[in-house]
């Protein structure tokens, strides 16, 4: 268990965007339950299934984060030349290389003296991103960090018809501005890594271990329940993940609170794995029911790396966060396996709330392929 305290990093504002182009309601999910309304309702009661938002072909987490960043920059009114680090946290980058932070740096027109890095983290991504940003600021490596965190649930992703993933995930992109403050503002981070369970939640193919060749994308493998999988999809060992979560996360939360010595936490912003998981964790960690919010998974699905943030912004109206000072405990857990939490005081921050935005003029994947083909065909070193 890694624990760190910071004193001079503060969050100024947060923007959060979910693409509204493809909205799947609960009724759209009935096909996964043999068109049986009773089975659907039962699953809904246990897990909390509801609305999810999928990215159309061509829209990526980078596009969604860019939109969030522009909203944030406009609304907190800062000079972007003073941003000296851009950090992009995601498991759905645009390219294998270069890193997406560099692509976003260019698209946002940031200064040449700005560090740009990607962090490859999933469910705990937002807290990892905050941890790195706060460390940069505390050590005075940077004065102002733009943290972009997002993940993509794309049309390709859901096309296999696998209900273990298709019912759960939504796309999202977020932008958070963190800056140096002369005044003392304490924040407390706790991070656990359990790497021996790396294969519990995994996307097996697409990296160097299993590259995309020999028609791998077209090969469908069926599990014992008849669910189709591709090796390019996320594989989730659901019961083992659930077991890990309800046994390890509540202990982690108690350790994190003890470390901070803060007794008046106003809200626990918890990763929305599913409704049952959130309820179980809160109950085992002895968290008051009025300090959690259980509806976010049903309203927006599991948005992966930003899911604890969607829970916070779903609970509090933008004006409320703007006019109040709150002790928030962020809690996330999942792929890695990894557990992360952070107790942070939010002082009158800007919040966009959850923006449901319809993206237009999306470059299709076919157009992107055409672009690169033409570029390479016209290239000559002479």
């Amino acid at each position, binding site marked *: 268990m890694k624990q760190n305290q910071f004193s001079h990093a503060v969050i100024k504002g947060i923007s959060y965007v979910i693409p509204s182009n493809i909205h799947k309601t609960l009724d759209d999910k009935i096909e996964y339950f043999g068109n049986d309304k009773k089975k659907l309702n*039962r*699953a809904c*009661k*246990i*897990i909390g299934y509801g609305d999810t938002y999928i990215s159309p072909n061509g829209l990526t987490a980078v596009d969604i984060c860019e939109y969030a960043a522009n909203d944030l920059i406009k609304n907190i009114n800062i000079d972007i030349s003073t941003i000296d680090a851009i950090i992009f946290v995601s498991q759905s980058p645009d390219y294998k290389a270069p890193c997406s932070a560099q692509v976003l740096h260019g698209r946002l027109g940031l200064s040449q003296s700005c560090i740009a890095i990607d962090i490859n983290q999933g469910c705990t991504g937002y807290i990892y991103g905050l941890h790195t940003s706060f460390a940069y600021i505390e050590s005075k490596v940077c004065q102002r960090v733009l943290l972009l965190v997002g993940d993509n649930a794309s049309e390709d992703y859901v096309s296999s018809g696998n209900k273990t993933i298709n019912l759960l995930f939504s796309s999202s992109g977020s932008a958070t501005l963190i800056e140096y403050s002369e005044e003392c503002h304490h924040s407390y981070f706790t991070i656990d890594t359990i790497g021996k369970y790396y294969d519990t939640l995994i996307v097996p193919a697409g990296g160097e271990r299993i590259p995309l060749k020999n028609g791998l994308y077209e090969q469908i493998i069926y599990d014992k*329940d008849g669910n189709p999988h591709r090796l390019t999809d996320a594989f989730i060992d*659901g*019961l*083992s993940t*659930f*077991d890990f979560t*309800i*046994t390890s996360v509540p202990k982690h939360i108690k350790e994190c609170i003890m470390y901070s010595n803060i007794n008046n936490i106003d809200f626990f912003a918890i990763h929305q794995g599913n409704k*049952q998981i959130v*309820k*179980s964790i809160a*109950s*085992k960690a002895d968290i008051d029911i009025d300090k959690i919010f259980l509806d976010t998974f049903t309203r927006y699905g599991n948005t992966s790396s930003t899911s604890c943030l969607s829970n916070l912004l779903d609970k509090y109206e933008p004006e409320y966060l703007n006019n109040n000072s709150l002790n928030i405990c962020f809690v996330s857990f999942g792929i890695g396996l990894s557990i992360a939490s952070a107790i942070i005081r939010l002082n009158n921050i800007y919040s966009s709330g959850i923006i449901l935005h319809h993206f237009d003029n999306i470059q299709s994947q076919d157009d992107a392929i055409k672009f690169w083909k033409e570029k390479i065909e016209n290239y000559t070193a002479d």
Partner: protein
Amino acid sequence: MNKEEFLEKLQDVLERDEEITEDMVLEDIEEWDSLSAMALMAFFNNVLSITLLPAEVREMKTVADILHKAGI
């Protein structure tokens, strides 16, 4: 919690309309699936404070096995 109360609770946990009895084979219960396994693990952990592992759930064959694990 006595046996009757537990079986009634189990019916809620599995979101089942019909009664559950001790001699039932889990495979014959329509609602017995991965969702109910998760709900059962949550129930054991949160309400009974008994750790129930996925491997243990997979080994359970009858309602009596569940009662046994719950110590009832």
